[in-house]
């Protein structure tokens, strides 16, 4: 079981005043702990439930509902490539395949060196940049194989 760091505990405590009940802070609490731990394991859910005076099953159903929570370790960089309509029209599938080959990793998996996780995701809300990907919160648009090479190089 993972420990909740002092910093995370402090951040979480500050959240409680925002809502009339603790449970409402669950989504943000999970974001904070995931930033610390990398992912949320089932055995950690009990600890989180305790922190928020909740039933563990209610933590579990949230962790499994929202796509941004990871339930197993991910790479240092999580590459989310859009597979939705505008990006597909603009050649998104070629981009996804290029990344798969370049990083030697299948969708949903992490490269053997633990550096990159590759995910195909739904619309990122940046269609003017299509085809687009997001890496650790940063958006990269108008992707071409050359541009991807450059971006990946800079992440190494």
């Amino acid at each position, binding site marked *: 079981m993972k420990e909740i760091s002092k910093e995370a505990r402090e951040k979480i405590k500050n959240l409680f005043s*925002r*809502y*009339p*009940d603790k*449970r*409402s*802070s*669950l*989504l*943000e609490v*999970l*974001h904070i702990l995931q930033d610390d731990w990398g992912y949320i394991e089932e055995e950690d859910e009990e600890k989180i439930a305790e922190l*928020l005076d*909740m039933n563990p099953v*209610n933590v579990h*159903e*949230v962790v499994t*509902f*929202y*796509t*941004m*929570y990871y339930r197993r370790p991910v790479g240092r960089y999580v590459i*989310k490539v859009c*597979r*939705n*309509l*505008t990006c*597909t*029209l*603009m050649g998104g599938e070629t981009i996804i395949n290029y990344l798969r080959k370049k990083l030697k990793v299948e969708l949903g998996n992490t490269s053997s060196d633990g550096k990159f996780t590759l995910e195909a*995701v*739904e*619309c*990122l*809300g*940046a*269609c*003017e940049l*299509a085809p687009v990907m*997001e890496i650790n*919160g*940063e*958006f990269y648009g108008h992707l071409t194989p050359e541009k991807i090479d450059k971006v990946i190089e800079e992440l190494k």
Partner: protein
Amino acid sequence: MSLVITPWFGAVKIGDYIKRRGYEGAKKALSIKPEDVIEEVKKSNLRGRGGAGFPTGLKWSFVPRETDKPKYLCVNADEGEPGTFKDRYIIENAPHLIIEGAVIASWAVGIHRAYVYIRGEYLKFALILEKAIEEAYQRGFLGKNIFGKDFSLDIYIHRGAGAYVCGEETALIESLEGKRGNPRVRPPFPATNGLYDCPTVVNNVETIACLPYILREGGENFASLGVEKNGGTKLFAVSGHVKDPGVYELPMGSSLRELIYNYAGGVRGNRRLKAVIPGGSSSSILMADEIDVSLDYDSMIKAGTMLGSGAVIVLDETACMAEVLRVITRFYAHESCGQCTPCRQGTSWMAKIAERIAIGKGKKGDIDLLLDIAHSIMGKTICPLGDAAAMPVIAICDKFRSELEEQIRERRCPIERE
């Protein structure tokens, strides 16, 4: 031509925003009675910019004025409709429009606590908004005694975590309460039983961002920018096969053709226009000869589609409709919350059938099967996600039946691509 939102783009810092007459609308609102603010918004013919197009002033007036319960405002920044990125532009380029609008709405309805529900992927933009909120507190535009009045408002940002359905107002409320985003049965509506079972207003970012203009220039002025029953301007997010994808602000009632050709630069590479999805991926597709329509809620319904969020996706002659169908159906299958059987089952069945058509394994009769499933979802679910999944399928199957049939027969896409 007067514009409501884009003239403030670039005024990210509060000083720059104030220089451009920022917070004058909020000041004006707080100098008149809350009921009069609601009247002004009713006069403006402002309708919900998230896609439903419900009159904003009317929505507010359903909230009880006298109640023992606290009331809440939820600003919906869970922009997730494929093709839509206009709210991101507002947050990124003029965050104070949202804060000022929230002050106006809260004064009008009697609200002291507002949440901005922002999609999890917009972390970077949430930080911009957070900074703007801090600035507003420092200037006394948020917190206690705003503009010296006995009125307080606190705004908090609440980040989502990846779920399209949370853009639906009752799912958003569930998510704010720390739960799965399962939409609620309505009635009761959020206006009386919303967040924590308290009276709640849920308004889209763009709707909120129109309020400063309405208060500053007057409801009639705003109404006159648009057309009958559709006041003001609208942000359109244009993407796909156009020369200049981006966000454009046009008066309500402008022509879709004008938007595509005069603003977004027309079809890239001077290719032939094939079709347009005019209001996000849930809206019914229009053929190339159907784009002389007026961009307002009522005309778009008459044209058999909807204005939706104003996300215009342009398809040129290289677009393969089987591929389009595959991507759209996969999306709704992925995003269905699973509560209602017709949507949970129907969306995945449609996705499976569209997938097999796209990879050349379609069967004779698949198009009728798709239509049958889509019609069995329409109107039979708790929230509009079911309809959103069915409408584009019905329109694509009806309008591009011969292309899809050819794909099934030939086992490959009939569209020539370079």
